[in-house]
């Protein structure tokens, strides 16, 4: 699950240098370490069921028993501006994702092999899989 979570967690970005996301599955504390090492310039915020973990590389991890939106607001007030990135990531990703599919190589068995049903149920895999399925249920696609 750790491996899936570090691959499928999608962040939102605040231009105060904060990457934040809600984790639908049971929170794995170690994934925050992975992300803070990967993005040492940014604060990483992860929320699971009202509990928000915050970590910046080289600093101590903090835990807040409140929603991520509130914690984010507090941090944004005290931090300087950082990089600016587009807010259109979802659209950008969906166009890129769709562009990579080679229809002649369609292989539902392999597709199924790589998509744990648990992740789909949790909604972690996001909209790209809905598109991949052509808006069908996954069971329709795999039959």
């Amino acid at each position, binding site marked *: 699950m750790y491996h899936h979570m570090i691959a499928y967690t999608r962040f939102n970005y605040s231009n105060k240098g904060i990457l934040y996301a809600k984790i639908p599955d049971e929170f794995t504390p170690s994934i925050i370490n992975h992300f803070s090492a990967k993005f*040492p*310039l940014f604060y990483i915020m992860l929320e699971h069921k009202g509990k928000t973990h915050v970590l910046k590389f080289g600093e101590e991890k903090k835990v807040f028993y409140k929603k991520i939106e509130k914690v984010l607001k507090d941090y944004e007030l005290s931090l300087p501006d950082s990089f600016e990135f587009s807010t259109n990531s979802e*659209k*950008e990703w969906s166009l*890129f994702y769709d562009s990579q599919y080679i229809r002649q190589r369609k292989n539902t068995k392999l597709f199924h092999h*790589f998509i744990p049903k648990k992740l789909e149920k949790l909604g972690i895999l996001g909209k790209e899989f809905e598109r991949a399925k052509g808006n069908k249920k996954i069971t329709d696609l795999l039959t």
Partner: protein
Amino acid sequence: MDTLEKIRVLGEAGKYDICASSSSKRAGASNGIGNPSAPGICSSFTPDGRCITLFKVLFSNSCTHDCKYCQNSSSCNKQKVMFEPDELAKAFMNLYVKNYVEGFFLSSGIIKEADYTMDLMLDCVRLLRNKYLYNGYIHLKIIPGTSRDKIKQASELADRLSLNLEVPDKSSMSEISTVKDYKLDLLKRFRYMKKLDLPSGTTTQFVVGSVDDTDYRIMKRVNWMYNNMNLKRAYFSAFIPIKNTAFEGKIREKLDREHRLYQTDFLMRKYGVKFADIKKIFDDEMIPRHDPKVLLANETLKEPISINSADYNSLLKVPGIGPKSAMKILNHRKSAKIKSIDALKELGVIVKRAKNYIEINNSFQSKIGEYA
């Protein structure tokens, strides 16, 4: 055309290029964005079962070359699109920081000439490294014919460089392109690359079945590249005819052939099997439709291998025993003999595949049930 539309067009234009997930021995820095040393993370999968790890696009789909299988060929009638270096760097960073992708893969059609195109690609990569402090994985394609100086510059910025050979030799190249010179544009560039210190090495790709290449010729070239060009690995892509290309009417290559080539390549690359042995499995210069390791074992293992006395290389010849399980067997033997099939299973051996080629305590596997 806006950036989003360019991503769609140039992502599609680059989808036949193959690359593995990011991994590099280059250490991450604590003052940048990204980390190149986390291999095997697939951020998504397409319905063809391939993982999406890298943001893989072409810088431009405009090309002066006329490769007959290629959708970006100069002879194809298509909309020409090109990124601006900063536009592409921004688009990639936007996806990278939000954890949609694990790294960057950049290739291109040839705009005007090789060095001109390479310069534009390098501008983009420099922006990533210097302006956006990107410290993650970059796989950069070398354009055929690129000068030694530009290749050196690329090696200082990227983790991996690659250049597609597409076919095994000069004669095949003449069937797919009237422009590309196999020795001058491709092999000579590999000679430049082999002297460079690249964290993730160099790779190449073959389009299998676009012309009448045999598996033997392809693997012979791959072996030569491993031995002489310090190649890290080779990729194989079964030919798919694409509309509006000169090869549109050709028959598509079976994926099974691509799979057999990967298996054979794996034997050479990971199992250390010499090409002289690999040669034994070819049938009329093609790999038969069976697992090459089984074919090789049938050719070379005349006697069952003794699990308790065989050396590492002999163990590796047995189907069902890989490098990890072979090491486990050797380590286990330091303290005790292997006396049962169950013990082998625990060491990671796929007994079902191995049973016809091994013996335990001087008993041949045909009596395998007796060990249980």
